[in-house]
């Protein structure tokens, strides 16, 4: 579904050139859930933006659904750390924004409206359709954002630390909801997080990036049966074991020896 070959990204910043990513080879299968961890500034967001077509890579190639990425695609959705809702739009009309912007959508508007109601119900927001974003809590706003990124049934969801600004309880709930949605829709997900535990609980595979420049240090398969939860977890020991390993990978300082 997603294929990166020898992808590198160099920024010409104010303080000279910054190599954000180097030699990234990653293949994400359809329906797979991949989480991406690494120290802050190691290029995780950049990697997502490359896949999203928001940024052309300075080297290498990025493909989604067997096609080279040239710009944002309709079947790829992006979810940010902050809810990024338009403050003057109601919950419903925020969820409908992608449909409104892309006039050439395949279904009728009414069908999408039904879908929006359905999604809002799925995340427990029925009855809030007419509210404005500022009337909702941070967790509820992020749920709206999740509905918005699901409205066009994306094949690929790119999520950039979407739960990191939420309280522990909301984050647990949302990560369960996300797994449920993913199972139901068979969406391919690339999910950036700085929480090791979250990375383990959500992923089929965890990709560990090295700090500056971001390279792939290790890809770890997670074979723990689903559903998994951040809360009551039948597989605490497995999660703990893998987490410890990831932790060790992340804190290794040498990035040169793995070239």
């Amino acid at each position, binding site marked *: 579904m997603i294929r990166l070959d020898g992808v590198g990204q160099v920024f010409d910043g104010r303080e000279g050139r910054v190599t954000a990513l180097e030699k990234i080879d990653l293949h994400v299968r359809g329906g797979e859930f991949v989480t991406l961890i690494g120290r802050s500034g190691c290029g995780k967001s950049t990697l997502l933006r490359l896949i999203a077509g*928001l940024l052309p890579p300075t080297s290498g190639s990025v493909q989604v659904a067997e096609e080279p990425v040239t710009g944002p*695609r309709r079947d790829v959705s992006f979810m940010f750390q902050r809810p990024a809702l338009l403050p*003057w739009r109601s919950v419903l009309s925020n969820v409908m924004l992608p449909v409104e912007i892309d006039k050439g959508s395949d279904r009728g508007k009414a069908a999408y409206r039904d879908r929006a109601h359905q999604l809002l119900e799925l995340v427990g927001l029925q009855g809030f359709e007419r509210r404005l974003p500022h009337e909702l809590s941070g967790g509820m706003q992020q749920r709206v954002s999740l509905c918005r990124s699901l409205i066009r049934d994306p094949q690929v969801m790119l999520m950039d630390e979407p739960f990191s600004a939420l309280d522990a309880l909301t984050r647990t709930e949302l990560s369960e909801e996300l797994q449920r949605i993913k199972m139901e829709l068979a969406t391919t997900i690339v999910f950036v997080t700085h929480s090791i535990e979250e990375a383990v609980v959500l992923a089929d595979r965890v990709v560990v990036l090295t700090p500056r420049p971001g390279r792939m240090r290790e890809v770890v398969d997670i074979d723990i049966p689903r559903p998994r939860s951040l809360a009551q977890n039948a597989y605490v020991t497995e999660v703990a074991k893998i987490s410890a390993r990831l932790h060790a990978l992340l804190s290794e300082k040498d990035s040169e020896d793995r070239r």
Partner: protein
Amino acid sequence: MTKRSWLTGSPAAAVILPIIGLAAAIALWWLATVVFSIQPYLLPTPWDVVVKFFDQPGALLSETGTSLLETIEGFLLAIVIGVPIALLIVRSVVLERLVYPLLLMVNSIPKVAIAPLLVVWMGFGQWPKIVMVLLMCFFPIVISTAQGMKSTPTELVELMRSLNATRAQEFFKLRLRYAMPQIFTGFKVAISLAVIGAVIGEFVGATKGLGYVIQQSGASADTTLAFAAIMLLSVMSIVLFYGLVLLEHLLLPWAQEKR
């Protein structure tokens, strides 16, 4: 509405408090004239002013109408010219560097100094007054609009990009909408300046308007008449200002609630 006191919380207080403030000021004024037994040609009592107004309400109201019309026309003209200029400035750094110092220069000219020139250029009609209003309002409208257009959060811009929004969609559905509260702030500053502009315009080469009345009453030492005109100007200013506040409330309910 948790533990806010009645004085800050209730809508009734929002109306009553300004009235109390106004009443206190008038009472003080009255007290001053009585205690220091000031001559009416120096400072009339509030009652003198009220009597003066009701001597010739029709005439004074018609002068008010003249000033009001000039104010509104000049203000609207400033919007029609100022907002597009601000939009252009925001789009192009070159244009900004080209035009900004010029705007600053024009704004720094004491407007009173060019009032006679405007009469020379445009005659004794209402145009020099309207242009004077325009000159007064122009700057705050341009500045606040430009500022508002620059304040769009990057994550919202990125969201629009990820949805493949066109430039026009990004402009109308996001940037302009987001700038509206700040544009309104500019309008509110400008409207008070607009009234001052109309008066300055009417000081020179005018035959009607409240500014003309004040000018004439100065010549005939009719301080009470001058005060009546000034009071009418204040009322006009206040009504225009709160008219804008009301409009903002109706058009941008989402912006009010944020506070």
